[in-house]
C-alpha cells in the first residue's frame, strides 16, 4: 500500500497535521468525535492516512501487548549475589555437643516474617532480627565492608523487629500480641534461639476484601 501522504510532509493536502493522525493511531486513541473535529469526519485524505497508519502500527501494538515474563532464574541469581555482598551480616550461634550452629540474620528475619503471616489478621509482614542488649556494635555486626565470614558472634538471644500490614477491622493490640507469641514460638522451634523481645510496628492497614 502506498500511503505516503501527499502534501509538505507535515500536513496533508487537506491541511490536517499528519503528526496528529500519527499520535492518534500510535496512542490508540478513539477517533475524534465529528462534533469536535468536523473535518476528520468527512475528509477522504485523513481517512486514507488513518487507515494506512492503523495497518502499519497494528503489529507494533501487537508486540506491545505481548506478555513479558522475566526469566525465572533472574531472581535466584540476583539474590545469591546480593547475599554475598557485605551488608547486614551477623550470625547467631547456638552451641551444641558436637559443634556450634551459626544461623544467619536473614534466616531469623524470614522465620519471623512467615510466623507473623500465620496470624490471620496479618496481611503482610517484614521481619528483622538483631542481637540482644549488652552486645557492642562490633560484636554484633563487624565493621562495615567486612566479608560475612568475619562478622562478630551474636549469641543465642535475638530481638525481632517486625512490621506488619493488618486487615482493617482487627484490634491492633491483640493482633500484635498474637504476632509476638507466634514469632517467639517459631523462632524457638526452627532455630533454637531465644527471643528476647518482639517489637511490632503496625505499618499499614489493608482492606481484607
Amino acid at each position, binding site marked *: *500500500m502506498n*500511503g*505516503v501522504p501527499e502534501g509538505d510532509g507535515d500536513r496533508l493536502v487537506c491541511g490536517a497535521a499528519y*503528526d496528529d493522525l*500519527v*499520535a492518534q493511531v*500510535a496512542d490508540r486513541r478513539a477517533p475524534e468525535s465529528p462534533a469536535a473535529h468536523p473535518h476528520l469526519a468527512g475528509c477522504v485524505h485523513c481517512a486514507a492516512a488513518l487507515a*494506512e*497508519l492503523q*495497518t*502499519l*502500527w497494528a*503489529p*507494533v501494538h*501487537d*508486540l*506491545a501487548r*505481548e506478555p*513479558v*515474563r*522475566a*526469566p525465572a532464574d*533472574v*531472581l535466584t*541469581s*540476583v*539474590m545469591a*549475589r*546480593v*547475599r554475598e*555482598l557485605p*551488608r*547486614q551480616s551477623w550470625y547467631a550461634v547456638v552451641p551444641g555437643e558436637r559443634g556450634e550452629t551459626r544461623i544467619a540474620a*536473614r534466616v531469623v*528475619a*524470614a522465620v519471623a*516474617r512467615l510466623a507473623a*503471616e500465620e496470624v490471620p489478621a*496479618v*496481611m*503482610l*509482614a*517484614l*521481619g*528483622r532480627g538483631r542481637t540482644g542488649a549488652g552486645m557492642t556494635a562490633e560484636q554484633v555486626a563487624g565493621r562495615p565492608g567486612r566479608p560475612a565470614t568475619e562478622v562478630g558472634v551474636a549469641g543465642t538471644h535475638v530481638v525481632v523487629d517486625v*512490621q506488619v*500490614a493488618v486487615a482493617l477491622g482487627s484490634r491492633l493490640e491483640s493482633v500484635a500480641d498474637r504476632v509476638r507469641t507466634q514469632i517467639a514460638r517459631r523462632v524457638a522451634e526452627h532455630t533454637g534461639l531465644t527471643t528476647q523481645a518482639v517489637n511490632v510496628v503496625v*505499618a*499499614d492497614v*489493608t482492606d481484607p476484601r
Partner: protein
Amino acid sequence: MSPTPSHAESSNGHESGWQAVLLAAARAGDEGAFEVLVRAHQERAYGVALRLTDGPQDAQDVLQESLVQAWTALPGFRGEAGFGTWLVRIVINRCHNQRRSWRATQPLPEDATLPAAPGAEAVVVGQQHRDAVARAIATLPFDQRAALVLHTFDGCTHAETARILGTSEGAAKVRVHRARRALTERLREWG
C-alpha cells in the same frame, strides 16, 4: 500468604503504604524486603530491557546487573522517585552504556548498522511481522528508542517518561514524536 504488594507507585512516583515500608527496610539492608521489591518490579524492568537490547539474553544480563547495582546503591537512594521508576532508569542507563561499549569495541561497516530490510513477502504474517517491528524499533537512535519504549510499551505518560530519562516533559514529547515518525517511515519502507 503471598507478600505481594498491593500496588506499585503512586501517581507522583513516590512510594506509599507497604511499598514505602519495603523500601525503607531494603535500604536498611533487609534482603527479604529487597526480594519482594524485585518480584514486584522485575517484569516491567525486563520488558524495557527487552526492547532496548538485542535479545532476551542481553536483556537478562542487563536486568541482573541492574538489580545488583540497585541493591548496592539503595542506601543512597532517597526515594525521590518510586523504586520501579528508579530501577527502570538504571536499566536504561545500562542499556545505553552497553550499546556504547559494544560500538566502541566492535566497529561495524556503515551499512551494517541497520539490519537488512526484509522483503515484502517476509513480513506478511505472524512472527516475521513481529520480528520486523522489533528490528525497526532497534534501528531508531537510542534516545528516541528509549522514549518510544517507555511511552508506547511501558505505558508511561510524557511526564513519567521525562522523569525516567532525566529530561523535561517537552523534550520527552519531542523524542516520542520523532520516534513515532521515524518508526512509521521505516515500517512503510519495509512493508
